[in-house]
């Protein structure tokens, strides 16, 4: 088994006087799909935000390549692609401008590459339409087009299947499985049934029952 990319050691989180999880140990290995499961309000999004480094109101250590993540923030953020509940798409800009702005801090990509990614994300013909004129599913596709040009080994996806049509869901599923087979690591929450060989599960929402 290869070295874990991302590790969480003894993670506990409390929000609004409610214990979301306690003593959670997570190890994310390249080439695995990890699914975070649990009912609404069980802290799935909070866990993903903690792993991504957006939320730090918790106890426990998070290690990136075996060393404390917060000491090597640049390396960590460069290798992480996080897509949250909010798509990260500006309504006034076109899909092409949005994609370019989102990728600009990561690597140089030609216009053709970005356009091809948007085409593959099912946005052919919408490259230059302002995003506020697109549907929710299309806006989600703009955000997901990043996955198609991503060289980051770690993906953290929070409810990425939301608002996608059946074809989009199937496409995203294929993309995730392909990524895992190439040696990438994917952490996702979804209520959509998702299955892969060797999929790992993190079950949340059990602590509450004991705490109450």
């Amino acid at each position, binding site marked *: 088994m290869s070295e874990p990319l991302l590790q969480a050691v003894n993670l506990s989180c409390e929000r609004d006087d409610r214990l979301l999880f306690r003593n959670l140990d997570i190890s994310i290995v390249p080439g695995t799909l990890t699914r975070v499961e649990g009912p609404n309000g069980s802290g799935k999004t909070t866990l993903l935000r903690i792993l991504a480094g957006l939320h*730090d*109101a918790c106890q426990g250590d998070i290690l990136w390549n075996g060393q404390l993540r917060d000491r090597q923030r640049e390396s960590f953020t460069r290798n992480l692609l996080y897509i949250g509940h909010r798509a990260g798409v500006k309504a006034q800009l076109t899909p092409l*401008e949005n994609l370019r702005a989102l990728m600009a*801090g*990561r690597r140089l990509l030609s216009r053709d590459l970005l356009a091809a990614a948007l085409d593959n994300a099912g946005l052919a013909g919408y490259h230059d339409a302002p995003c506020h004129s697109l549907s929710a599913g299309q806006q989600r596709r703009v955000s997901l087009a990043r996955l198609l040009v991503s060289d980051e*080994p770690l993906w953290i996806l929070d409810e990425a299947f939301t608002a996608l049509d059946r074809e989009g869901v199937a496409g995203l599923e294929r993309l995730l499985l392909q990524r895992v087979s190439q040696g990438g690591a994917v952490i996702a929450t979804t209520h959509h049934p998702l299955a892969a060989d060797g999929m790992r599960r993190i079950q949340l929402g059990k602590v509450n029952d004991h705490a109450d």
Partner: protein
Amino acid sequence: MPTDKRPVMTPVQNTAPLAQAVIAIMRRDLKASLRQRQDLFNPLVFFVMVVSLFPLGVSPEVSFLRQSGTGILWVAALLSTLLSLDHLFRHDYDDGTLEQLLLAPQPLFLLVLAKATAHWLVTGVPLVLLAPVLGVMVHLDGNSIGVLCLTLLVGTPVLSLVGSIGAALTVGLRSGGVLLSLLIIPLYIPVLIFGTGTVTAAEAGAPVSGYLAIMGALLALALTLAPFASAAALRISLSNS
């Protein structure tokens, strides 16, 4: 595909040049503001209206306007900047681009500086450009108008930079507008005092270089400290959302 050894993606080492990331953020912000005309014109219209209401509401006397014109213009500029501050991070917070900003591989304070600069370009610079016209309206003489524009040119970036701290602190709150004003107005007072002081000195024929030096010092202080404070405030705000 079953293989003996599973492939492993190696972590990426190279990051895009810093300048590219900073320029991309400024371009995105400028484009978004220019397409959201209402947000762009609202502070400007406010600025012009406040200044033009004083002659109507108080007195159109030349002596009154000449004496209080500078103060009116500076207060109006300050308030209209305050009006636009809430938008600095609010839209980004709502659409999720702020999260992506925090997860960019570049130092956050530089990206915040880029955002504050973009904010100044679309709110501060138009105020500076409009000021001469309004200066004529309140009967300031040519020399005073020149100095007034100079103080606004140095002072409005301070307003944007210092304001970004307040905007970052209140972005996670549902109605942060009032709190933002309360937090930021006290920090704006030195800029206001030295801004109007410079023009008053110029009107009296006194040298203004000392005043301008202090304003320059305020700008230097804001440039070096505000981005760090804003970046820290953004991390806190997003951590609690």
